[in-house]
């Protein structure tokens, strides 16, 4: 009597087929990652030489050369961006977590998410109008500001999330000791959330370190060492882009090498961020 009828069998088959399709979707979604990583390693390794890390780019046809200036440039831009993005992001995140329960908090949270969704190229155009036009030149400063603006909502929202994870009992214990709220927030709450906040900053750095579009007409690019904060500055991403769309095989090889270095930085930051974020112990 408990034998599956024809429809029951059809339903069972449909169930199995759908499950297989979902698994296939996973494979399709992960395949590009495997392919990208595979090609970067295969094509990029040969370009990773001592010269790549120590020399300036060589003119077309000369061969050799490296991306030392772009590597330093990317690090400089990240540092500049962090000066803008980290303090504003962390304090804003504290605001959202601690006193952002009302309408103002809702609007700020909403705007932060919207700002996070604004295309990075638009941020580039904004900073162009804001900084490049008045200064009449592309500059490291403009690039740093553009990346910094992108960093703010990223750091803000993760900080909020991490601070919210801090148990209320910890705060209350501190307040009950008569410690003022502002000291409690900085010394107890924020300190308890430190690991999480660092995770957020690292992920934000990984994200902006790979950005190209907002730098195209803010930081621009240069084949030389940077000459100052008000001068154009090279970056791995813009250099990679210029090399990739150029018609020279030698440049393509360097582009793959740059991709390998950039991807390694991004991966290390992501993995480290996860490692730092994991122990959610709130002791010290």
């Amino acid at each position, binding site marked *: 009597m408990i034998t599956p009828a024809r429809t029951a069998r059809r339903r069972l088959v449909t*169930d199995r087929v759908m499950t297989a399709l979902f698994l296939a*979707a996973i494979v399709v979604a992960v395949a590009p*990652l495997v392919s990208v990583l595979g090609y970067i390693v295969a094509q990029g390794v040969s370009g990773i030489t001592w010269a790549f890390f120590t020399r300036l780019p060589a003119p077309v046809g000369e061969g050799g050369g490296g991306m030392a200036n772009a590597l330093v440039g990317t690090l400089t831009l990240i540092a500049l961006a962090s000066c803008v993005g980290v303090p504003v992001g962390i304090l804003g995140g504290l*605001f959202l977590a601690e006193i952002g329960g009302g309408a103002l908090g809702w609007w700020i949270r909403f*705007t932060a998410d919207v700002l996070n969704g604004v295309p990075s190229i638009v941020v580039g155009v904004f900073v162009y109008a804001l900084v490049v036009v008045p200064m009449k030149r592309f500059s490291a400063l403009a690039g740093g500001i553009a990346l910094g603006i992108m960093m703010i909502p990223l750091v803000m929202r993760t900080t909020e999330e991490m601070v919210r994870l801090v148990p209320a009992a910890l705060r209350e214990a501190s307040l009950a000791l008569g410690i003022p709220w*502002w000291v409690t927030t900085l010394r107890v709450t924020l300190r308890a959330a430190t690991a999480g906040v660092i995770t957020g900053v690292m992920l934000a750095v990984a994200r902006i370190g*790979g950005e190209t579009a907002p730098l195209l007409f803010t930081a621009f690019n240069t084949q030389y060492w940077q000459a100052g904060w008000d001068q154009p500055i090279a970056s791995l991403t813009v250099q*990679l882009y210029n090399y990739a769309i150029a018609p020279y095989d030698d440049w393509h090889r360097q582009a793959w090498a740059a991709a390998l270095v950039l991807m390694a930085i991004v991966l290390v930051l992501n993995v480290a961020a996860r490692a730092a974020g994991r122990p959610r112990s709130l002791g010290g």
Partner: protein
Amino acid sequence: MFRSQVGREAEALLLPPGGARPRRWADRTFRGALTAPGLVVVLLVAWIAVELTGAAMPAIRRFGPAFLWTSRWDPVHNVFGALPFVYGTIASSVLAVVIGVPISLGVAIYLAEIAGARTARLLSCLIELVAAIPSVILGLWGIFVLAPWVRTVVEPPLAAVLGWLPLFSGPAYGIGLLAAGIILAIMVIPVVSSVSRDALRAVPQEQREAMYALGATRWEVIRHAVLPYGRSGIIGAIILGFGRAFGETMAVTMVIGNRPQIAPSLFQPAYTIAAALANEFSEATSDLYLSALVEMALVLFAVSLLVNGAAQWLVSRMTRA
């Protein structure tokens, strides 16, 4: 003694972290010091709007709304119509959604409904890493791996079977709208799948069990109970994915072919707003040219506000319910 201690504790409880009214001046100052950075984002969004509108004004005055639906883009004669870019942007984003959403939903369902906790965590991690690949690297891969693959493996069979449709007609270029759609789909999948996974996880277990108790298979539970319940979150996820796709710059610029035309075939090159900005902005020779480019940036910005606002609203409604 005892009373005062109780009093202080009660005070601490009445003055929770979100403390209604910190009395000390230091607390008040600190409150301000936190509020100001929070307000920075609001200020920034408003500022972007004002700054872009101002810089776009010459083009807006000169061409009016027709800017959006005329298609002559001629820097030499200072005539600018953005239609080919608007078309390329919409077409590539729609293509990304069409390709990416079914895959994303499959991923989300697998992660939320089928995989065990540990497998789901591992796979989520891998898919988040796809999102972490810098756009310019994906573009490099697009030029040298994806485009040739599209030209030799994807387009010929499509043309052979569906070539009678204008959509799949003409020679296989590799570089073009289809390649852009695929690369955008790759970038959209992590966003759409993780947001819809969260939407599916928010579906109460009771809904699943009620469907199981009626004699449903797992697929039927997903199809009739889980997906309908999570639909507003899923729609939010799709809109969010669309928003991610249409503002994407580097990867698209590198594989779409950058030709301002409106061709019926997906195999043909096209051009997007973001790509035009990337390529032409630092080379714009006249003020009007620059202004026209800024106006396109303004369009991107406005659409991103609308799309992200709508998506946030839908997703938050889902998770609040």
